[in-house]
Structures are given as C-alpha cells and as structure tokens.
C-alpha cells in the first residue's frame, strides 16, 4: 500500500510533471523526422520502399504512427494523470480558501517585506472597523479578529483570481483531451477524387480512402450528394496559384432542390453532420479508343500532378478492347493500356517532359501504348494510376509505340486501331470530414487562453493591520504586507492600501503626531 502511495506521490509531484513535459516535447520530435501515416500515407510507403533495412525496425517502434503509438500515449496520459492528481487537492484547497477568512496576522508584521506603523486617535475596535471598511471598499477580502490581550487584527487578501485562472487553465487542458478523444471515437472522414461533371454521394464505397472512429459505423453517415460542375484555377506568370474555385451543387435530402456553392480552399461546404473541403486538383485527359473491330471506348483518366507546374502522370486502361464481336474474350488478349505524361504547357525542349506553366496554354499529352493482358482479372487490386509492372515483366503486356498528341489529334496504332486525345476535364480531390469533438476543443482552447492570462497576470497578496491600544485611548497600528507571487510593484500598492485608511491621528499630537515609518 505504501509503495502505491509513494508512486502516487512521485507521479503527482511537480518534478515528475516537469520531466514528463520534457519527455512529451522530445517524444513529439520523431514524428517530424519520419513520415507519418496520419499525415501522408504515400510518403510512408515511399520511405519504406527506399529504406528496406531500416523500415521494419522503425515500424516496430511505431515511428510512422508516433502520435498514435503506445509510448506517446503513455507519456501524455501519465502527464494528465499527474495533472489530475495535482489539481484535485489544489481545487479543494482553493475552494476552502475562498470560503475561509484570510489567515490572521503573523506574529511580527515588521519582519514582512513591507510594513509601516501609524498612531490614531480611535480605540482598537473602532479603528479595526475603519480599516476593514476601507479595505472592503477596495475589494479586499477581510477578517477582523479580537485577541485576548486587547489587540485587534485585520487580515485582508486579494488575488484569488490567479489560482482560479490556474485551475481553469489546467482543467481546460483536460477538456481538450476529452474533445480529442471524442473526435477520434465518433468522427470520420472520407477522401475522393471527383472529375468535373461527376457526382458523389456520402457513402463509404464512394470514397477512395476513408477512416472511421472506433465508435462510428459507416452505415449511418448523413445522406447528401455533391455534384462538381466546374473547377477554375488562376495563376500568376510565375506559376504561383492565386485562386482555386470549384462550382458545386448539393442536396442534403433526397428530392430536395439542389443548392449551389463555390468550394474554395478557405471556404469549405458546411453541411449538417459533415464538412466538404477542397484539397487538391489536376487534369483528367479524355481519350477515345476505336479498336480493330470499330468498337468505341471513351475514358476520362485523372492524371496525378508530379510538380508545381502540374506535369501529370497517369494511365488509361481499355480492358474490353479488341474482343471480337460475339465473343466474351480475346485469345490472346489484346487489351490496351496507355501510360502518359500530360503537360498543360509544353516544355519548349521536346526532350524534357516537364510543363512550364500550370494552366493549359499549350497542352500536350505524350502517350505510350501497351497491348496484351492488363492483369485486371488476377484478383490482385491494381492502381488506377499505373500499369501492372508484373504483367510487363512477364511479357504479357508489350509496348507498341509512343506518340505526343495535342487536343483533337489522333494516333493510329500498328493494328489499325486509333487513339484520340479529345481534351481534358479538371478534377478535384475533396475531403469530407466530421469531428464532433471540435466545438469542445474550441471552447476548451478559449478557456485555456483565458485561464493562462488570468493566472500569469494575477497577483496573490495579503495585508494585515495589528491594532494595539495606546495609553491615551487611541491606538498604534502596525501594517504589514506580503506578495505571495512575483509582484515588483507591491510596495507601491501597499503604500496606497495603507493610505486608503483614512483616520485622524490622536488629537493632542495632531498634526505632527502622524508618524509613519517604513522598513
């Protein structure tokens, strides 16, 4: 039992909290060194591919999920437990302090950092009341105590708000933890790419990538559909973007009249139960393929940007091409795959496949055609942005030629089929998110800030007056003051506080009898 208590005392001590704070700061560092799954899944995959030796070890240490790792969670949970263990008694103490009168004057007021004495004509009881009223008027909490030896003390305290702010700040930090947990459990998000002209609805299978909170099921997502009509980007001559805007319309209920919205980077579409954010954009070449049996296939293939000038790479796949009419498949298969590099503004050097401007000033599409078996029937999921390298390696997919096309141009392949580049359609990526913890986080953050400012600017201080009866019926008052926190201006305030007590000196010695000694 005593060891448990000792552990608790260790955990809730300020030294431990300080160490935990430092450990928390250090523990957050690896997350900025290694790519994080929570930030960019692609970057993690790339890193693992580049460091095959190191990656398994890092994986075991949660280096790619630092902020969800057991060791990071352990640090902040220990810190918060330490915080609660520290706060609970402080809260109790603070409530007690707020209820209880300020403590009585220490034995020797003249030993305090600031003190002074004064003689007055009033008797101790009367003088104490005058002191108390003056201080009460200046919004000090006061208490008057009469002692057996005939002296009367007035105790006053101010600055309780400092500890109130301190407690508010720390409890608000706890509310942030609750808000974070709430959002993680009951929040969800989905990301997808939408080509202009297309529509998507809020169901999980419509998302390219999604994440559900631990306490969320995907079948109760709010029903809404969004249609992307158009996307426009504006650029400076340097290629720096100045405006991204997607014209969308949405319905939140079936049978509802669609409403329009301009989706922009800092201008999300806020629906009940989810928000839609504009995350990215690019070009999707539209390709028409007329196969050797004159069957026509048209596809819109979103290409992914590889640089700031929107040089984009992608692939168009025609798995049903070149199947003889009346048959279900061709033998050998003659499916068509087109890999390509799209430059919205062609590089003046034809050997360099890097766009020189992100808008379509001189668009060119360089295609490489592959024929054979795309490998789509193998059951292994494939990227929609690349051909299956294994099929190429196995010789099941062979290159038939390369050609650079401008919009409207066509290319006849050796087997007589034709590829036509019709133009492009813009696409955007959207993130649809719901985080129910957000409002608590905002409220908590506001409370953190208010608590912090009150706690750092507040000054807890006490002043006392000890009033002794004098022989002539008057009294001798000793004032003393003590600032309990950093407060360089306390001596000035103490002087003011003493001056606020407006009392006549003993009549026979007035006015010279006003003696004030500073220590």
């Amino acid at each position, binding site marked *: 039992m005593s060891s448990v208590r000792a552990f608790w005392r260790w955990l809730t001590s300020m030294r431990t909290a300080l160490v935990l704070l430092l450990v928390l700061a250090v523990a957050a560092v690896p997350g900025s060194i290694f790519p994080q799954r929570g930030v960019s899944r692609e970057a993690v995959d790339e890193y693992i591919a580049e460091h095959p030796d190191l990656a398994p070890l890092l994986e075991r240490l949660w280096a790619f999920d630092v902020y969800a790792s057991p060791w990071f969670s352990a640090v902040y949970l220990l810190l918060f437990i330490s915080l609660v263990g520290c706060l609970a008694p402080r809260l109790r103490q603070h409530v007690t302090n707020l209820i209880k009168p300020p403590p009585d004057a220490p034995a020797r007021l003249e030993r305090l950092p600031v003190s002074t004495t004064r003689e007055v004509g009033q008797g101790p009881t009367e003088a104490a009341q005058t002191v108390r009223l003056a201080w009460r008027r200046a919004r000090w909490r006061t208490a008057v105590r009469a002692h057996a030896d005939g002296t009367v003390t007035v105790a006053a305290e101010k600055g309780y708000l400092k500890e109130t702010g301190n407690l508010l700040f720390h409890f608000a930090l706890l509310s942030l933890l609750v808000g974070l947990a709430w959002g993680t459990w009951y929040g969800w998000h989905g990301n997808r790419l939408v080509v202009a002209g297309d529509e998507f609805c809020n169901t999980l299978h419509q998302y390219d990538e999604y994440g559900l909170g631990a306490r969320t099921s995907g079948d109760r997502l709010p029903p809404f559909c969004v249609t992307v009509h158009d996307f426009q980007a504006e650029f400076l001559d340097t290629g720096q973007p100045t*405006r991204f805007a997607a014209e969308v319309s949405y319905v939140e209920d079936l049978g509802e009249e669609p409403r329009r919205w301009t989706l922009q980077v800092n201008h999300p579409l806020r629906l009940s139960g989810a928000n839609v954010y504009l995350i990215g954009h690019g070009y999707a070449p539209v390709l028409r393929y007329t196969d050797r049996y004159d069957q026509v296939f048209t596809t819109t293939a979103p290409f992914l940007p590889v640089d700031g000038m929107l040089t984009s790479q992608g692939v168009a796949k025609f798995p049903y091409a070149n199947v003889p009419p009346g048959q279900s498949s061709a033998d050998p298969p003659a499916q068509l795959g087109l890999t390509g590099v799209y430059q919205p503004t062609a590089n003046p050097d034809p050997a360099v496949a890097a766009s020189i401007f992100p808008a379509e000033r001189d668009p060119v599409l360089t295609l490489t055609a592959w024929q054979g078996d795309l490998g789509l029937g193998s059951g292994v999921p494939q990227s929609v942005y690349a051909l299956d390298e294994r099929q190429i390696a196995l010789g099941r997919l062979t290159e038939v030629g390369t050609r650079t096309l401008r919009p409207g141009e066509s290319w006849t392949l050796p087997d007589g089929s034709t590829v036509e580049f019709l133009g492009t359609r813009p696409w955007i990526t959207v993130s649809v998110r719901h985080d129910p913890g957000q409002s608590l986080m905002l409220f908590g953050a506001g409370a953190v800030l208010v608590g912090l400012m009150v706690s750092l600017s507040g000054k807890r201080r006490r002043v006392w007056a000890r009033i002794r009866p004098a022989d002539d019926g008057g009294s001798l008052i000793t004032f003393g003051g003590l600032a309990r926190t950093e407060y*360089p201006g306390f001596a000035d305030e103490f002087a003011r506080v003493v001056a606020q007590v407006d009392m006549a000196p003993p009549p026979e010695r007035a006015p010279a009898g006003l003696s004030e000694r500073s220590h």
Partner: protein
Amino acid sequence: MAELSDTLLFVAAVTYVAAMVGYLVEFAFGTRGAVARVAMRPVRELVAVGAGGGASGVDIVSPVQPERPERDDETTPRAGRTGVAGAIGVALTVVGLAAHVAVLVTRGLAAQRVPLGNMYEFVVTLTAVCVVGWLVLLAVRPTLRPLGVFVTGALALMLGFAGLVLTTPAGPLVPALQSAWLKVHVSAAATASGLLLLAFVPAALYLIRAGYDKRSGLADDGTPRVVAFPFSLGRALPAADTLERLTFRLHAFAFPIWTLAIICGAIWAEAAWGRYWGWDPKETWSFISWVAYAAYLHARATPSVKRTTATWFSVVAWLTMVVNLYVINFVAVGLHSYAGVD
C-alpha cells in the same frame, strides 16, 4: 516599391549594426566595463594578473573595487563619454526601427496585402516586434541598456539572413493563405516569436551573469579568481536577479500570445484543411515549443527548482523555436511550406 522595400531592409540591418557598435562601446569601455576596470586598477594588481597566467579572454575581479555597486532599483544609466555611445546606440535603434517599419509598409504596398505571406516577411515582422519590445523595455528600465549589444546583434543577424537568403519577390498570396485568419494567426505567431526572441536575451545573459557571480571573488590565497569567457561578460551586465525577473516577465507576457497563435492556427487549419490539428511538421514543432515554454514556467514556479535550471528550460525552448523557423522551413515538407525558399 518592392525595390525600395529591399533597400530599406539593408538600411535597417546596417543601422542596427551601427547601434550595436554604440552599445558595445558602452558595454566594453563604460565605467563598469571590464576594460575600464583593468585600466583603473593599480599597477600591482596588473602584475598579479600576469602572474596568475591571465590569458586573453579571461577576466579578474579586483579586490580593491567594491563589487557591483549597482542595485536593482537603480534607474539611471551610466553617464560619461561611453554613456554617450550607449545613448547613440539607442538613437540608432530608433532610426533602425523607422526603416524597419518602412520595409514592412512598402512591402505591403508593393504586394497589395499584409506583409505576412512568407518566411521573409515573417522574419522581418518578428524582428520589428522584438525592436519595439526592446525600446519599451528601455523606456521602463534604462539600466538594461547593456543588453542592447545582444538584442541588436541578434536583430542584425536575422535581418541580414532574411535579406540575403530568404528574400522573395513581393506578390499575391497562394489560395491557402487567402483568409482573414492570416492576419490573426501569423501576426500572433510573429509577435510571440519576436517577444520570445527578446526574452531569450536576458535568459542567456542571466545564465552568464549567474556563472560570473559563482566564479568571481577571491581564491583561497586571496588573489582574485580568473573568470573565463563567456562568464567574463557577466561583469558589465545588470544584476542576476534583475535579469532573471525580466526573463520571467517577458516569457509570462509572450507565452499566452504564442498560445493564441497556435489556437488561431488550429481554427484556420480546420477551415483550410479540414482538421484543427494534423501533426504537420510546423504544428508539431509549435507544440514542442509550447510544451518547452510551459515546462519553463512550471520550473520557475517550483521553489525546489533552481532559477538557473529553470532558465535553461527557456533557453532550450527558444532553440526549438529556432528549429521551427529555420530548420523546418527548409527541411521538412509540410502543409506550412509557404516560405518560398526552395
């Protein structure tokens, strides 16, 4: 207008260097300066210096001179010829600030927006906040003037680096930055950073001064002890407790502003990226700095922790700010990549 802005930056940086020279003259040759003390010392003692093997860069404390007559409550800076140099330093700082503010105004006019859109503008703004803070400090406490050497030195260094390396053409904002939150979030971050930079100066100097106090005095054989660099700088500095209190008060003032900057950043991130916190490298390091400064404030409030130990926390915290500003912008790829310094 953009060229004028670039020229003014050069003017501001050079003026701060000139101001630093003014402060430095006072710091080194002032009546309480190290050199002046050696010069005033009787010949016998100078022999003792040689006998003690005093190499260059070391300092001794004279047993004859009363140790550190100035106290915390002293309000007038030193007079005399070197005092004039210090006053010139202050005047040049004011001139430099005028040019500095003009840099921001002309930059804003050239770009037709608030000059808070990239790393260059951020550094120019945060250093301007630092200068304003420094001049306010001087107005309240003229005795802090010896600190001017280090304040203007840091400013000239940061402005020079901004002008030579970070400089980017004035232009409109990328769409992600086109938000009213830019003004709130970035200006709060720049204000907090500028004040924390200013707060770092007394923090580091307090550690030097405290080290000097510990090392100076008389050795067992009655000869003055040799104080090595950098603690030898401590002699001309204000009293240790003055520096320590100033360090705390500046941090206590700047920390809530830093908190505000992070909160505004989170609100903005929600609107721009869909989440209020995503452990982007910049976010991560602002969190690290926040935790480090929180640790300093807690250490400072804990009686059992020595004041020098607590101050070390603030020095480490400032280093995390430097990492966030200079390392993360260049090395890490994140959503905050607006520095424009590829």
